[in-house]
């Protein structure tokens, strides 16, 4: 195979079915685009977090970190006095809501003299210049802003601005700019004591940045410092910040990537059927080339090149599309399409060239592999026969049940393979095998199904039945295409529907109160104080309030984050959270009860009856696991504990959210209005009724899965376009047969109807096999892939109406596509068709 020859033969490919090639390219492009967009969104988010973390950590080589709500600043003294520590810089960090805007500003409280030794950028231009004057540092309201923060707030040095705090708005003054920290994003830096005082965090810090002495023995120093830290506080490397965030979003990323891979797989299949049909159509051409001396290997190389070129076109288009889409999504919805994983407000666009190249290459490889699969039957091509006879077809697929059954058994076995890390490799393997089994079952299944159709004397039916049953290569490639696209579409539809119905039911249970108040929809600086809670409880018409407090920490003896949900727990709440068992245990003398989420079971291996230790408020607190509950709002672990137990252990009286139950006879609107006035006293806090939160959660769900809806639509469109073009090719190759039939007395209309019958039969076989394998794939998606990557248990819910419409549409459109193709094929004169030679 030399280059000019390849170029000449490619003209033949292009003069063939352009639309079909375009569809194959589009499908590869779609898979590459989706995978590329997910990857780019994630890479951008991590890049921003990582860059900010590195910049702010400066020369620090370690960081002491604790629970999200902070830890006692007594730990600072212990760390700072350790002989191996060169510099220890305490940090208070929170995100404060910007009044009137749906965003939060990151506020860092530092000890400037210590912080500047690690990151000189903390010392502002202005402060340095003023030198001898009254240092504005001592002004409690002074804040230094990065230029990007000033731009966002619309302020300049000397201006005042307000942020939400737990006791009302905090008014600050812009003391200067921190241009050196601009890469760190929008940021306000203040004196640590001022932040503690103004934001109600006295005695609490969130982090200590550390630089160890170069001459100190590292291992011993780390052990010594760790020993001085309270439970729940640990010493880590600065770059672990981005890693931890990456862990939180992994499940989300894995799932979308899986969908992208499915699109790629469909694309690969389309390349396969495109090239298979091309090869069938060009069978005589290929036979001629073989006769003229092209080797079988040369022909194979040409077809692989053709596939790779289709793949390269798709990969290039897909990469461009993915970059454009991720950029647009980044601007509109943030790094995670609004799913709430990243609180960052930046908009770094940082595509990762290496991953994008890998994804693109995967697209090319998929297409080339599909092309190579086509050359297998071509290798069996009998050159002399192909040159002589004019029955243009690929060899029929194997007819036995052994291979599909073996593949199905493999799919079943693979479903039980444990995940590697958090990636459900067994699940993916199982899906691949299930699809392969369905494709391999096309031959035997069509024979089985058609044996059920009674033979008849109606000539058209007899002819159609014989044609479909003999399942020529054309028809089987086409039916396989229908099987794969129906399977993927049905699987995704069933999976997303099951997910949505499960989430919907769960939300109804979880949102059992009438109203919910949230202190800090943006950031975490604002909480409901005991006074605010009391004011809400005192509103006339309020029956009771359930304060909810969140904490995030790493459980003892584990890595990875865990959310603590503390709220009054009763049987009704447990039923709402679908807990098992659904009732609290009787209060005994042992440790208090805790309910662990399904993710905690998967990630920490916790079981009912087990005792777990959580480092709460710097103390080791033991809990007894009373049961498992369902938590669709996190993919990481969560523990539900009773608020009374939590408060007794921590002495923390604050609340992040409040669930409000109205009195039976209360006038809902009036009470809501009164509560709204109380909540409004807390800056940034929101009050919503349960149905609003319910609807908003479903809207976010729909947005997250919008990509899959689009994918489903495209898969079906592609399958149907594929059917029509397959039938066109099929009808073209059979025009001589049709000519004969018309000589024998069939009308054009009857020939068209013959093809419509064949199309419907092919559609039925494809739809039935596709639905069966799609159901199997959805079971794997729900019970294996989602369980292992999201850690959420859910039940299968069939979208019956959608599935019925899908099947009816596929069958009807197959018949329509076939008859349209037939009409074109019989448009020529019968005589001409019979003696046609090309």
């Amino acid at each position: 195979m030399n280059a000019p020859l390849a170029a000449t033969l490619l003209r033949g490919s292009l003069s063939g079915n352009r639309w079909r090639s375009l569809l194959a390219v589009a499908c590869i492009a779609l898979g590459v685009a989706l995978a590329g967009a997910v990857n780019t969104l994630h890479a951008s988010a991590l890049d921003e977090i990582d860059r900010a973390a590195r910049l702010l950590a400066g020369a620090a080589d370690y960081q002491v970190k604790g629970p999200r709500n902070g830890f006692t600043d007594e730990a600072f003294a212990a760390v700072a006095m350790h002989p191996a520590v060169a510099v220890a810089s305490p940090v208070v960090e929170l995100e404060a809501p910007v009044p009137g805007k749906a965003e939060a500003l990151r506020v860092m409280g530092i000890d400037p003299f210590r912080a500047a030794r690690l990151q000189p950028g903390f010392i502002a231009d202005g402060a340095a210049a003023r030198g001898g004057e009254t240092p504005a540092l001592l002004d409690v309201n002074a804040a230094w802003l990065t230029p990007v923060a000033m731009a966002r707030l619309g302020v300049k040095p000397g201006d005042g601005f307000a942020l939400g705090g737990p006791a009302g708005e905090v008014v600050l003054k812009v003391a200067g700019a921190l241009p050196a920290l601009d890469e760190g994003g929008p940021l306000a830096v203040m004196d640590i004591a001022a932040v503690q005082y103004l934001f109600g965090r006295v005695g609490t810090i969130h982090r200590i940045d550390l630089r160890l002495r170069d001459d100190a023995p590292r291992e011993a120093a780390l052990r010594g410092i760790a020993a001085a830290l309270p439970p729940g506080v640990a010493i880590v490397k600065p770059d672990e910040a981005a890693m931890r965030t990456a862990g939180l979003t992994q499940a989300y990323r894995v799932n979308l990537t899986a969908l992208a891979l499915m699109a790629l797989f469909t694309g690969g299949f389309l390349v396969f059927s495109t090239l298979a049909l091309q090869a069938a159509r060009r069978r005589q051409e290929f036979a001629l080339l073989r006769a003229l001396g092209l080797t079988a290997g040369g022909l194979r190389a040409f077809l692989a090149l053709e596939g790779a070129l289709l793949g390269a076109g798709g990969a290039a288009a897909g990469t461009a599309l993915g970059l454009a889409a991720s950029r647009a999504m980044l601007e509109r919805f943030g790094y995670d399409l609004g799913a709430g994983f990243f609180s960052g407000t930046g908009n770094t666009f940082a595509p990762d060239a290496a991953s994008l190249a890998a994804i693109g290459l995967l697209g090319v490889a998929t297409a080339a592999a599909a092309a190579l699969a086509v050359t297998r039957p071509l290798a069996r091509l009998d050159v002399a026969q192909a040159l002589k006879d004019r029955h243009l077809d690929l060899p029929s697929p194997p007819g036995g049940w052994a291979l599909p059954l073996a593949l199905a058994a493999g799919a079943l076995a693979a479903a039980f393979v444990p995940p590697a890390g958090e990636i459900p490799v067994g699940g993916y393997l199982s899906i691949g095998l299930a699809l392969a089994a369905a494709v391999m079952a096309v031959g035997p299944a069509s024979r089985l199904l058609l044996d059920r159709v009674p033979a008849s004397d109606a000539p058209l039916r007899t002819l159609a039945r014989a044609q479909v049953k003999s399942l020529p290569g054309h028809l089987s490639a086409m039916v396989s295409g229908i099987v794969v696209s129906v399977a993927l579409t049905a699987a995704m539809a069933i999976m997303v529907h099951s997910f949505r119905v499960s989430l919907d039911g769960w939300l109804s249970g979880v949102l059992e109160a009438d109203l919910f108040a949230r202190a800090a929809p943006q950031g975490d600086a604002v909480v409901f104080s005991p006074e605010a809670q009391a004011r809400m409880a005192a509103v006339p018409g309020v029956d009771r309030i359930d304060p909810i407090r969140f904490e995030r920490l790493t459980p003892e003896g584990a890595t990875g984050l865990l959310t603590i949900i503390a709220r009054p727990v009763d049987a009704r709440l447990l039923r709402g959270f679908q807990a098992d068992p659904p009732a609290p245990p009787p209060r005994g003398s042992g440790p208090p009860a805790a309910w662990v989420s399904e993710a905690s079971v998967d990630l920490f291996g916790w079981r009912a009856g087990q005792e777990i230790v959580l480092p709460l408020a710097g103390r080791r607190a033991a809990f007894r696991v009373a049961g498992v509950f369902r938590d669709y709002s996190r993919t990481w672990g969560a523990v539900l504990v009773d608020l009374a137990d939590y408060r007794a252990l921590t002495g923390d009286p604050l609340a992040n959210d409040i669930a409000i139950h109205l009195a039976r006879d209360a006038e809902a609107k009036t009470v809501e209005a009164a509560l709204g006035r109380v909540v409004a006293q807390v800056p940034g806090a929101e009050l919503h009724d349960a149905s609003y939160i319910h609807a908003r959660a479903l809207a976010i769900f729909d947005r997250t899965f919008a990509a899959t809806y689009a994918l489903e639509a495209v898969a079906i469109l592609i399958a149907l376009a594929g059917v029509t073009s397959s039938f066109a090719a099929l009808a073209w190759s059979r025009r001589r047969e049709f000519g004969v039939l018309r000589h024998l007395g069939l009308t054009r209309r009857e020939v068209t109807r013959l093809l419509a019958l064949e199309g419907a039969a092919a559609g039925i076989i494809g739809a039935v096999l596709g639905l069966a394998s799609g159901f199997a794939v959805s079971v794997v998606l729900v019970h294996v892939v989602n369980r292992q990557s999201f850690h959420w248990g859910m039940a299968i819910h069939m979208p019956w109406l959608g599935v019925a419409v899908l099947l009816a549409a596929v069958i009807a459109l197959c018949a329509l596509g076939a008859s349209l193709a037939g009409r074109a094929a019989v448009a020529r004169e019968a005589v001409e068709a019979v003696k046609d030679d090309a």
Partner: protein
Amino acid sequence: MLQARGLAKRWPGGVPLFEAVDLDLAPGELVAILGESGAGKSTLLNIVAGLDRAEAGTVTVSGTTITSLGEDELARWRRRRVGFVFQAFHLLPYLSVEENVALPLLLNGVAAVERRGRAAAALAAVGMAAHAQRKPASLSGGEMQRVAVARAVVHRPALVLADEPTGNLDEANAAATMQALRDAVKREGAAGLLVTHSAVAAAAADRVLRLAGRRLGPA
């Protein structure tokens, strides 16, 4: 130039098609094999072309015993040493007439300028120079077959094989095609082997043999 010795063929499960077939062709000689439909003419031709395998016997072309070559070696041998004319023409519809003729040169890696020159010369020799830039679909059957003859000799093969080249043509076009084939074989000094059931076509050959009753003998 071509020597076949003791060729025998039987399809799996069938009766023998032919046995002990010997065949000798000299350079520049055009030999026709006549026979009823189903006699095995095409099968014999395919064995000589290395597209089919004999059960017994050898075929040697210009000193190369092709019956002992592997699949890929056969393909490369055909590429350099064999030209074909088919009943159904087999011109590629997306290439121009000239490009179709140049196809064997393309397969042999001949440079573009030389390809054009040699294809044009071969077309001129069959009287088709004026149609070089047309697409095959716009030609008549006779014109297509003359283009195919040009393609069969453009790379100066040792062997030119033709299977029912006049099967799809009327008498006048059949005669023109046979003339072109004969001229081409003589001009290139190739050995030409023609199989046909048409005595008229066979009449253009230097020598006529008959395949009947499993034997190849004089007509």
